[in-house]
């Protein structure tokens, strides 16, 4: 069902944890669908480069693997590059996901965007992200 890459990222997830003084934190998902993803970003205000990224995930194997893969894909990249990351690209980087598991990869994309939105708020920069596009788990 899962590819070797999915299983690898599931078994040895990269960048698990929290960042104390994160520039942006995003949390998406809800308990109803059983997936919650939280992403921490450390962004260089000068260069707009994502210098560090960590995640925490409550979810299935695909949710954990896509979280892990997405952190690898954006670490060291610019905000613009991160904004262009799609769930399909994450799934492709894992050599694909079963169709019923594609929605788990959506969460990774959304957690990242939510963290960037948080950064937008905190930094005052306009990244073109819109508050209404997100449903915060806390407010549910």
């Amino acid at each position: 069902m899962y590819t070797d890459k999915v299983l690898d990222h599931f078994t040895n997830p990269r960048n698990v944890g929290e960042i104390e003084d994160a520039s942006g934190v995003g949390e998406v998902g809800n308990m109803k669908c059983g997936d919650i993803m939280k992403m921490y970003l450390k962004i260089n205000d000068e260069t707009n480069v994502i210098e560090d990224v960590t995640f925490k995930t409550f979810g299935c194997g695909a949710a954990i693997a896509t979280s892990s893969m997405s952190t690898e894909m954006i670490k060291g990249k610019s905000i613009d590059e991160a904004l262009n990351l799609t769930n399909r690209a994450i799934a492709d980087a894992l050599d694909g996901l079963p169709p019923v598991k594609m929605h788990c990869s959506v969460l990774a994309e959304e957690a990242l965007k939510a963290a960037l939105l948080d950064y937008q708020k905190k930094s005052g920069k306009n990244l073109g992200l819109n508050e209404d596009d997100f449903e915060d788990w806390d407010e549910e």
Partner: protein
Amino acid sequence: MRRVYLDHGATTPVRKEVIEAMMQVHSEVFGNPSSIHSFGRPARKLIEEAREKVAQAIGADPKEIIFTGSGTEADNIAIIGGARANQKKGKHLITTVVEHHAVLDAFKSLEKEGFEVTYLSVDGEGAVSVEEFQNALRDDTILVSVMHANNEVGTIQPVEEIGKICRERKILFHTDAVQTVGKVPVNVKEINCDFLALSGHKIYGPKGIGALYMRRGVRVQPLYHGGGQERKLRPGTENVANIVGLGVAIEHAVAEMPAESARLEKLRDRLIEGVLGSIEETRLNGPRTKRLPHNANISIEYIEGEALILSMDMKGMAVSSGSACTSGSLDPSHVLMAMGLTHTTAHGSLRMTLGHSTTDEDVDYVITELKPIVDKLRAMSPVWERFQKGLPIH
């Protein structure tokens, strides 16, 4: 790596005696049971012998046994066939919220045909109440279906009492005994049922074979049409080998039940105590005693079931979960939700079902290996983080 199979509730290995019997059929008795020549007659004889074994195992008459392609088919023929055949008497049906999908979905389809269905609720341990059942009865109730024991949490239902009340009021009573045959005594006379469904692959028999007990005199409307096989209720050339396999399997399952169920009960209790004792924020789902002897269902808070299954699998342990993620649907187990568990708790449920192969060493292995897995998953769980920080979770 040690391999520990703790998913006997999902399916069981096929026992040696069954494989041998089936092999012999495949290679020696290939005739069509409907053929009257000397290639066909032995096949017919094998079917009738297996029918006797199944009947004997559940206290029925061989004429009351119909072989089907699965437990699901047996459930469907009883419920849909029984309801349609009796709809002139009324359109009200009763079942429970914790039935297997083979039963629930059959009722759902009957609702679309204009039947009205009452779904009985369950208490925190998954048991239905006879009182609620009695209050649900109406003058136009024609069929009731309550499972003998639940496949997820192992709760044994008061089917004898419900059956007795149905019999008195001449209401058809079906029970899904797929999980109980070979685990606890199953007798159609004591249960007072009109229908009873069972399946081969849960009792060390082959997949793709089930049986329906249908009490003498009871009529149902067939769902499939064709040849006259199995009293026209399950037309199509008979799966002789699997029928023979079911016969051998059920004979053994019932014979070994007293000793084996006692053995499994002990192992199960040790497993439950070991897990609950070594991992914090865990709870047993279902009753402590009135449950299937081989079933342990434990919620491990703040982690998700599929991730748990996969992690355990990597350490050689095969288990299942009531998490949505294992089933391809989005909602967690309807059984755990009906018992009042929160989404989080239901998602982190772990079902371990013991069987023939289960040893003391297996139980020790699980108790030892489970904790580090849970620790690792919790370490990356944002929900666990919230719990530890004392933040609201739901």
